[in-house]
């Protein structure tokens, strides 16, 4: 079994994994970080999105060994020192989540958008979230939350 070394939520991890282990299984089953979810088996729903090497990635469609040497951030790593990430705060304030199942993937994905485009317009936010399915919110408050966060981060900068 290959041994991989990576950083997950700023903690170093060294692990032996079967070569066929998916990154999402490493995260959920081995590291017990169950905030990353599995909502489909065809790489469409986005419930499993995490950051790998600064890019949002569907962790169900990546092997754990591919993350060797990388920096991985899951939803559990978003809040820093007990402070919610501005996006998490914005989702809370805008009621951007209901059942919460899609939420970790949506939040991580949106954080990648804001990194790449700090002032997205409504259409850009909606297009970016193409890979994240939410069945509860009708996306209305998700988009509002991302907009508010973008505005605040601009204001703060």
């Amino acid at each position, binding site marked *: 079994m290959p041994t991989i070394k990576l950083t997950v939520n700023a903690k170093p991890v060294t692990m032996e994994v079967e070569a066929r282990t998916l990154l999402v299984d490493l995260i959920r089953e081995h590291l017990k970080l169950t905030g990353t979810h599995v909502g489909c088996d065809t790489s469409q729903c986005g419930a499993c999105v995490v950051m790998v090497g600064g890019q949002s990635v569907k962790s169900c469609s990546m092997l754990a060994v591919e993350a060797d040497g990388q920096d991985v951030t899951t939803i559990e790593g*978003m*809040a820093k020192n007990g402070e919610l990430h501005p996006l998490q705060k914005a989702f809370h304030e805008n*009621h951007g989540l209901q*059942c919460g199942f899609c939420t970790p993937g949506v939040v991580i994905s949106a954080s990648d958008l804001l990194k790449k485009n700090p002032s997205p317009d409504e259409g850009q936010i909606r297009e970016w979230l193409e890979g994240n399915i939410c069945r509860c919110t009708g996306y209305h408050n998700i988009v509002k939350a991302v907009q508010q966060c973008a505005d605040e981060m601009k204001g703060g900068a």
Partner: protein
Amino acid sequence: MGKVIGERVLRKEDTRFLTGKGRYTDDLNRPNQAYAYVLRSPMAHAKIASIDTEDAKQADGVLAVLTGKDHADAGFGGLPCGWLIHNKDGSPMHEPPHPSLVADRVRHVGDNVAVVIAETKAQAKAAAQMIMVDYEELPVVPDITAAIADGAPKVWDDTPVGNRCYDWHIGEKDPTDAAFAKAKHVVSIDLVNQRLIPNAMEPRAAIGEYDPSTDDHTLWTTSQNPHLIRLLIGAFTMQIPEHKLRIIAPDVGGGFGSKIYHYAEEVLVLWASKVVGRPVKWTAERSESFITDAHGRDHISHAELAIDDKGKFLGLRVSTKANMGAYLSTFASAVPTYLYGTLLSGVYVIPAIYAEVEAVFTNTTAVDAYRGAGRPEATYLLERLVTKAARELGIDEVELRRRNVIQPDQFPYQTPVALEYDVGEFEKCLDVALEQVDYANFEKRREEAKSRGMLRGIGMSLYVEACGLAPSALAGAIGARAGLYESGTIRVNPTGNVTVFTGTHSHGQGHETTFAQLVADQLGIPVESVEVKHGDTSNTAFGMGSYGSRSLPVGGSALWKAGEKIIAKGRKIAAHILEASVDDVEFVDGEFRVKGTDKKMLFAEVAFSAYVPHNYPLEELEPGLEESAFYDPKNFTFPGGCHVVEVEIDPETGVTKVVDVAVADDVGKVINPMIVDGQIHGGLAQGIGQALLEHAKYDEQGQLLTGSYMTYTMPRAADFPFFKVGNHVTHCTHNPLGSKGCGEVGAIGVPPAVINAVINALEPEGVTDIEMPATPERVWRALNEAKKA
């Protein structure tokens, strides 16, 4: 502190979900847990000639392989249907058996054939592929049309008539025929309300655990109603007595109806845990969800509306065929009958209505309630018909609706189809929605769109739904095998904070916040001092769960009643301590005050005293401060409203873009407007999804063609604009809160508004009808057909 009903309180449950600390069933792992994989039929209809499990049993890591024969030998009962429908002639519906594993014949793709228990998920799945099943194919009934055809093959050999489950009717035929005989106009329509798949984002999962040392069974399951599951397992499928069976529905990732029902896997993991002596976990892959979660809708209807010379409705005749799938799921039989036929009067005065519904079996996944359940089908039929009538009569569709809508002074309004609406101001909802969408200037927008080569259309619908399921006496009279009250308990802790237990279940609706607001407001304490517990049969009294927009109007009312008992007891305690008569103690702003004096006790002081009593007159006053209540509603609640949609269609591609959605809903008294708006947004998205995108489609062989997110079109963020959510509220007259329920309104009202808008856009090109979902292909074809004609 105190008055928080109606406030936009941010959700208490958010922090755990936003930080990855939610606990959904698949996130839980029990010590020494094994895994289950269910082998499912690849055929829609076949005899199981033989099944050989020997190789699978020898495979790596396998602990047990169980088949339909083992299931029968174990003496388990089948999954029951909770609603008995009677045929026109009074005989009961046909109720086929529904074992958790089938032994002799499979009846739909996904039917449960065997279950493998192994050390790991991968081992269980690999071993399942080694089970040798010899199937002998049988002719397939893939849909309603095939089911009712002369000489159709039979899904069940013993159905008395064809593939019929029941033929039911409501209303009165003769007066309705008489209304048609004197009508000036008759407008008719043929409609398909297509099959949908609910697709909660969390796939179903279950963990069974049996402890031989105590004989306790525990089931963690993705359920909207854990007590109901306990009842069904206790009384029907496994006969485990309830005091030895605990059901926990932890965080649940959406339901929309699909997680109401008792599913085979719940039986299988409990059974398997006993067989292998270890906890057993099963988690659906999405492709399994597609073929095993109960589907929704699937009606074919013909309807006629009789209208007089003044444009007043005289009568409505409806004939509907409804697809049940291969088996009767828990609530399936009620959906096309009492949740559909009873709503056919809509918001209108229609003096005579007669509806017939024939439900049939097919070789497809079971169909049951999906967000709205029956009410979207009724609304779709009526609102398509009304718009069509307006077009054929040359009357403006707003005007035609105004002429026929039930007026506020007509309430309580008895419809010809059993329901008595208590209150509503539907025409006001129409005004508010039209105002929001700027209806007056629509033609200008159509012109402007035309200048860009786009076809713009506007459509609307008015709707009413029956929610707050359900008044038990009425439900029983119409075939429900259970009452549908709700329970609630308020436990005041010694230092004045409160733990609330509800028999409803939250899987996205935010009960932990809404119910906390309700109780905080009533008891005059801060929202932060109230914790709401649900989803575990070991800590709440019996409850019926969450569906049918019942949690607030029924479950909230139960809590309100419990709160009244708390206040009543608090007054007794305060009277004793303050040495006053109980009649002189009033509860105001969170304080117990002796009228006409300055003597008073804070709520927390009374709570403390209740738990450290020193000199209570024990004959009259027990220590402690905890009260429970059961609330059985007197009537259904009737949320209603108006949805208006504007679309733009690109005639080159047939792509329909929803450019504006304006709604005005009356959901009764609102506790948390932020949460209510969120519920409406979600319902609208599912309703627009039905109108434009979603369709569960089977081929001739009964194979689901849309069995993954690559083929079943889920709505994405870019499919919607922001929704304009308005309201015009009247209060429910018969529950203590005045609330009506809001979970389903979006999915009920909007599909006909979207399709009416699409037709409105296409009409100038000669298109007068389109089916759901109005996909680009359908729209493009309709435009091209019209061009040819």
